[in-house]
């Protein structure tokens, strides 16, 4: 088929550009799978010990909502539960990023025109991007399976974990392939693809915490498919066939859409706009808000839904609270004086805070995006000072994340208070109290941007480290000082427990210092192009 001509060279080009990223991602995934399993086996040398410890976990709704049900009451089952969630999200994000990067981003930047004028078929860029993404998730799956086998657990379960990663990655590659045909912008494609991913996560979480027949709804979500491979439990390797089928259908849809649009365009045409700027678009802050409001609206919708979902789970949490084992464990998590429900809400809200930090980092990184695209130069050649320009985007990042915490706290509070004994004010307060940690992430991003602009994207690496410290720190028995490196470790135990006032003030001080370092660094350096 000549429409596929050039796929090979394009794939080699993509590999040449991304090989280090791909290698690092695959190794990190396999390393995570290995270390969590090894640490769990260390903690529970026998299945009997694991079963005793895991019983509490299996019935804890906050764990089920995040990670899905425990595959089995064995040491390996406990050792893999977090890896299943992280592995499926890893597969999905990797596939999304790679497919989008080598299709829509290339078209939007105009680089594809350079390549497309050569002997390159219409389908070739999409084919090359999908092949790279699939190759990467398959490699991550294989290596993770091998890594698990290295800890001495059984082969079928290990292969099943690899299958989890591949299932999520395959379907997300298909979803992204369709999304990049629909809109003409990279951001628009991200909105659609990540929206589908978010929906899949919410459906899965709701189905997993539902009672009775509602649990089968998990099959509506491709993250649910990945989870139900159930390594070291059901070991349903056949789910891979389901994923292959769905991916095939999605790719056919993408292919049909591809043949109905022009290069550079989306299926949804770009519209014209106003000939004059509204009065609000007359300052640096006005510009930053205009550039970022679309993404904040998307996040707001997502956070409102997540808040309602989390809040409405409060009812089922209340019901299980009668189990003394869980009550004891959750009490410990909440600092000793909160209720089971408080502990559940506190855990969930802390994850929302990490999400809000991701928003804050993305919003602050707009600074770097504007700078390297050359658009910052146009603004700073006007009477806009550097400080004003920097603070415009930082303001959107800081207040935008506060807004998201307000939204999720309000929605979760309303839903929880109306279905259970939770207090609206306490939930909202707990959500807002995480803001200093989010602000630290924004501050660190600005510090990187001001002092080491070329590596600004490392801000994402920092967030990943903070997340991993929170998730795996206890299992890996990290020393306290290392746990303390994560700003999310200093939030106290809200709602219900005590707020860590010294911690919160400390976070604010760190955040302000980092912001100052970043702003001062930027004032002293050249504007890069």
């Amino acid at each position, binding site marked *: 088929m000549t429409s596929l001509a050039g796929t090979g060279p394009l794939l080699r080009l993509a590999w040449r550009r991304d090989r280090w990223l791909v290698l690092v991602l695959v190794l990190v995934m396999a390393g995570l799978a290995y270390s969590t399993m090894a640490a769990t086996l260390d903690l529970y040398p026998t299945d009997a010990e694991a079963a005793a410890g895991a019983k509490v976990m299996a019935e804890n709704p906050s764990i089920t909502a995040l990670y899905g049900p425990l595959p089995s009451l064995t040491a390996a089952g406990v050792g893999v539960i977090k890896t299943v969630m992280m592995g499926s999200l890893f597969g999905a994000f990797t596939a999304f990023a790679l497919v989008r990067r080598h299709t829509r981003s290339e078209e939007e930047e105009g680089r594809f025109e350079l390549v497309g004028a050569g002997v390159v078929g219409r389908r070739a860029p999409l084919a090359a991007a999908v092949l790279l993404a699939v190759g990467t998730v398959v490699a991550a799956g294989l290596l993770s399976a091998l890594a698990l086998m290295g800890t001495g657990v059984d082969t079928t379960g290990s292969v099943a974990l690899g299958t989890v990663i591949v299932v999520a990655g395959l379907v997300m590659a298909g979803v992204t392939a369709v999304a990049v045909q629909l809109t003409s912008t990279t951001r628009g494609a991200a909105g659609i693809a990540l929206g589908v991913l978010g929906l899949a996560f919410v459906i899965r979480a709701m189905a997993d915490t539902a009672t009775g027949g509602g649990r089968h709804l998990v099959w509506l979500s491709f993250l649910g498919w990945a989870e139900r491979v159930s390594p070291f439990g059901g070991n349903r390797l056949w789910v891979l066939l389901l994923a292959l089928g769905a991916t095939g259908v999605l790719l056919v849809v993408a292919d049909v859409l591809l043949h109905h649009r022009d290069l550079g365009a989306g299926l949804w045409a770009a519209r014209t*706009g106003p000939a004059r*700027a509204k009065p609000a678009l*007359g300052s640096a802050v006005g510009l930053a808000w205009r550039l970022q409001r679309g993404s904040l609206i998307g996040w707001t919708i997502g956070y409102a839904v997540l808040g309602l979902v989390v809040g409405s789970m409060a009812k089922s949490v209340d019901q299980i609270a009668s189990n003394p084992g869980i009550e004891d464990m959750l009490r410990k998590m909440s600092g000793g004086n909160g209720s089971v429900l408080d502990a559940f809400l506190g855990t969930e809200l802390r994850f929302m805070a990490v999400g809000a930090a991701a928003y804050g980092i993305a919003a602050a990184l707009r600074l770097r995006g504007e700078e390297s695209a050359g658009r910052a*130069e146009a603004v*700073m*050649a006007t009477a806009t000072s550097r400080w004003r320009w920097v603070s415009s985007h930082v303001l959107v990042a800081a207040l935008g994340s506060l807004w998201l915490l307000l939204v999720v706290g309000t929605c979760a509070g309303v839903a929880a208070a109306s279905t259970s004994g939770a207090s609206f004010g306490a939930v909202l307060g707990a959500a807002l109290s995480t803001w200093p940690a989010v602000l630290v992430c924004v501050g660190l991003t600005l510090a990187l941007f001001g002092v080491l602009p070329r590596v600004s994207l490392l801000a994402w690496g920092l967030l990943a480290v903070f997340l991993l410290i929170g998730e795996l720190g206890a299992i890996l028995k990290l020393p306290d000082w290392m746990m303390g490196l994560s700003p999310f470790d200093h939030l106290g135990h809200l709602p219900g427990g005590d707020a860590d006032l010294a911690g919160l003030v400390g976070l604010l001080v760190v955040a302000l210092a980092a912001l100052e370092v970043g702003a001062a660094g930027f004032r002293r350096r*050249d504007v890069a192009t």
Partner: protein
Amino acid sequence: MAPVIEATGLIKKFGSTTALDGLDLRVDEGEVHGFLGPNGAGKSTTIRVLLGLLRSDGGTVSLLGRDPWADATELHRQLAYVPGDVVLWHNLTGGEVIDLLGRLRGGLDEGKRGKLLEAFDLDPTKKGRSYSKGNRQKVALVAALASDVPLLVLDEPTSGLDPLMENVFLEQLAQVRAEGRTVLLSSHILSEVEQAADRVSIIRAGRVVDSGSLADLRHLTRTSVEATLTSPPHVTDVERWPGVQAARQDRDRFVLSVDTSSVGEVLRRLDTHGIAAITCQPPTLEELFLSQYRDELATADDAPKEEVRA
């Protein structure tokens, strides 16, 4: 009168590469100053230093009597800038960008805005991502020209414009000059600078190698004389005439490169051999430019100097 732009011994390094190597530049009030040089000579770097976007590593620079790094914000109220590579926000329309940049600078002339949109035939309702390169350039030009600022800094403003629009731009530039405003016009398009500029600075490898009015610069160079003679002399004799730098013979047709100050003498001598046809061309800016550039090639490659001019 204090110069609007004055730079002396400007140095800018990026790592181990030296982008500006002791650059001197002076632009007086009310003049259109051509800033001419090949790609990579340091034109855009100079402009970015003048705008306070880059910090110089040495030398002094002043813009309207102030320091462009320390007083950037205040200075920027008094200037408008068109970057060499115009990048627009994908989801803002051209009209919005023009208004935004105008407001960020401190206001723009509504009457001029409308006239310029018409003159450049620009649709302000299109989104940034759907403009072609030439149209993006027009957006930046309208935004800059619609201002009332005393200084315009234009970095290769016509790149991407078609010849028709290039003429529109030159007309607008003449208007700006008539209003007594100062313009720094960087370009590698020689005819454009030749038409528009009062004075020219030629930059090469981070230094200004020549600066002056076009008339000044022409004195330094040679006139091309092309003559068809009825009784042609021997070409080796012609080469020995005073002021003749190079001569080439093609049967009865001679092409000479003559020091501009010796043109009269050479014409008298040619006349003794019977002139059937003659054309004299003053040096174009292109030739100024080539002669500067050739020196650079010669020193760089150590190649034998060859007369390539015809």
